[in-house]
């Protein structure tokens, strides 16, 4: 009788997405202790159970409290629950808005052709135009999607529009040298700067909130995976289309490259964002699995790289492409670290994988130090250029991040602190990237005379 009641209560509690199995165990222990104490006071079993359950609190507000404490659990499992009450309607509306915005992005990228700027004509002028503006055709629409979804108030929307307007004015009005260093740097940093602006919309304007930032980081990772999946699928579709139409004597290459690829890619950016929002749970385990897979591989690669450098005594070549490669590598290490943290069970004890993670961070720090050293040597010998300063800034930012991460991770392994400080450090650091990206986009051209 009693066991049956408790079993029933357990299964109700278990259905709450914010409460996990261990929590239910803990609450059950509470319930049983309370019941036996009430029985000792003379109540019969039924009464005791009812009172104990009542005192424990109703599951709705209880699971709300847990959700408040563990937003990452909601990220993993919730999503459909609030809409379930309104039926499929809300979901369909959201999908329609997303598809509408995706179509708008696809159309937007073709609009410059009306002004005679053809995507495929290959002159430096049009190349430079598309390089500078591509992210401006689509990321504002992604921001609109989230501003709409999160119900951002009008004042917030105005603030949100500001970075996009500033960016559009800067990259189009400043007299850049055609495909010069500052222009290329601005082009490389603009998507980053705008992506973080989209994050403000994603957070519904409350971008200072640590949990929302962390959720945006998770979103970004999953978005990348979705986008890659869509791109791969799109590639297969196009390949097959080309082949079968070729079989009946129609050459579709021009149509595919001038319409399907650009419009499809723009649309996919929005659709990927919507899919991550709507279907998080489908591939919730993707980022952690990839992290698990690639952490050892990256560690191994870095160890071999460092070993080779020591063995052959060669130094880092300070070319733009090389430095971009290094920065990407370091960003990837930070990403691996972030997803490893966000995926791990906060209650789990540090294990072998965590040691590996620390080794990866230390290797990355060494590589970063080498790159920094090479850049500084180059600067002291040949003076400042936009590329060198950009590389210097980026590597400094990453070395600070990785250095403190390593300290926090070490403390975590020694069980002095939990994972929370590490997460907070990473989310607190996000504005640094934003500021730097905006500095490179806006100030570099002015400081270095548009060279």
């Amino acid at each position, binding site marked *: 009788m009693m066991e049956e009641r408790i079993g029933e209560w357990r299964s109700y509690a278990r259905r709450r997405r914010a409460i996990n199995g261990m929590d239910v165990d*803990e609450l059950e*222990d*509470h319930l049983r202790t309370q019941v036996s104490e009430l029985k000792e006071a003379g109540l019969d079993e039924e009464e005791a159970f009812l009172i104990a359950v009542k005192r424990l609190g109703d599951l709705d507000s*209880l699971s709300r409290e847990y959700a408040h404490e*563990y937003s990452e659990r909601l990220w993993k499992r919730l999503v459909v629950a609030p809409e379930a009450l309104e039926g499929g309607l809300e979901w369909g509306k959201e999908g329609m808005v997303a598809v509408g915005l995706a179509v708008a992005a696809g159309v937007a990228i073709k609009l410059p052709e009306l002004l005679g700027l053809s995507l495929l004509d290959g002159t430096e002028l049009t190349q430079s135009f598309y390089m500078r503006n591509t992210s401006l055709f689509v990321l504002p629409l992604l921001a609109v999607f989230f501003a709409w979804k999160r119900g951002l108030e009008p004042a917030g929307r105005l603030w949100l529009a500001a970075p996009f307007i500033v960016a559009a004015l800067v990259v189009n009005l400043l007299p850049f040298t055609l495909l010069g260093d500052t222009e290329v740097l601005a082009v490389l940093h603009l998507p980053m700067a705008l992506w973080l602006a989209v994050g403000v919309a994603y957070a519904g304007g409350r971008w200072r909130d640590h949990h929302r930032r962390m959720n945006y980081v998770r979103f970004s990772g999953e978005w990348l995976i979705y986008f890659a999946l869509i791109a791969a699928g799109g590639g297969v579709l196009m390949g097959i289309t080309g082949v079968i139409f070729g079989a009946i004597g129609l050459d579709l290459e021009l149509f595919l490259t001038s319409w399907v690829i650009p419009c499809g890619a723009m649309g996919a950016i929005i659709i990927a964002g919507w899919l991550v929002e709507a279907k998080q749970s489908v591939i919730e385990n993707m980022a952690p699995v990839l992290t698990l897979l690639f952490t050892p591989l990256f560690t191994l690669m870095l160890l071999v790289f460092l070993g080779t450098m020591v063995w052959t005594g060669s130094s880092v070549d300070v070319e733009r492409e090389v430095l971009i490669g290094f920065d990407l590598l370091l960003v990837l290490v930070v990403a691996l670290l972030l997803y490893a943290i966000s995926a791990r069970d*906060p209650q789990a004890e540090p294990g072998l994988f965590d040691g590996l993670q620390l080794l990866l961070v230390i290797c990355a720090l060494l590589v970063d130090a080498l790159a920094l050293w090479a850049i500084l040597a180059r600067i002291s010998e040949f003076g400042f250029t936009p590329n060198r300063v950009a590389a210097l800034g980026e590597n400094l930012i990453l070395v600070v991040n990785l250095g403190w991460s390593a300290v926090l991770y070490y403390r975590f392994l020694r069980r002095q602190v*939990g994972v*929370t400080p590490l997460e907070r450090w990473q989310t607190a650091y996000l504005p640094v990237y934003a500021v730097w990206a905006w500095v490179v986009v806006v100030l570099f051209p002015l400081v270095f005379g548009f060279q």
Partner: protein
Amino acid sequence: MSLGKDLVAASTTPLVLAILSDGESYGYAIIKRVDELSGGDMQWTDGMLYPVLHRLERSGYVKASWGRSESGRRRKYYRLTERGSEELASQRHQWQVVNSALRATPFHECRLAPQGI
């Protein structure tokens, strides 16, 4: 007299930390202790304590471990960490500041119209 909701929420952390400074304990016992200490004036919904305990654990103020109760059931125990006792000391101090500030203000008995005797 029972305490206002906000005050209860604000005082939960120091109270739980203070109770744990007496030694390892578990959810049900902590609630009992709060009841005793406040003479029943602090009313909690029992379940709400657990998210609070978990938050304290994540902040590193307490450490949780699974053990067994006297009757052999699985039970989660909490104990204070070094950081927890530092936090307790600082919160104690803060509450003392509030308390002494309130004491320093003039205190008049409220003279209200006598209610139906």
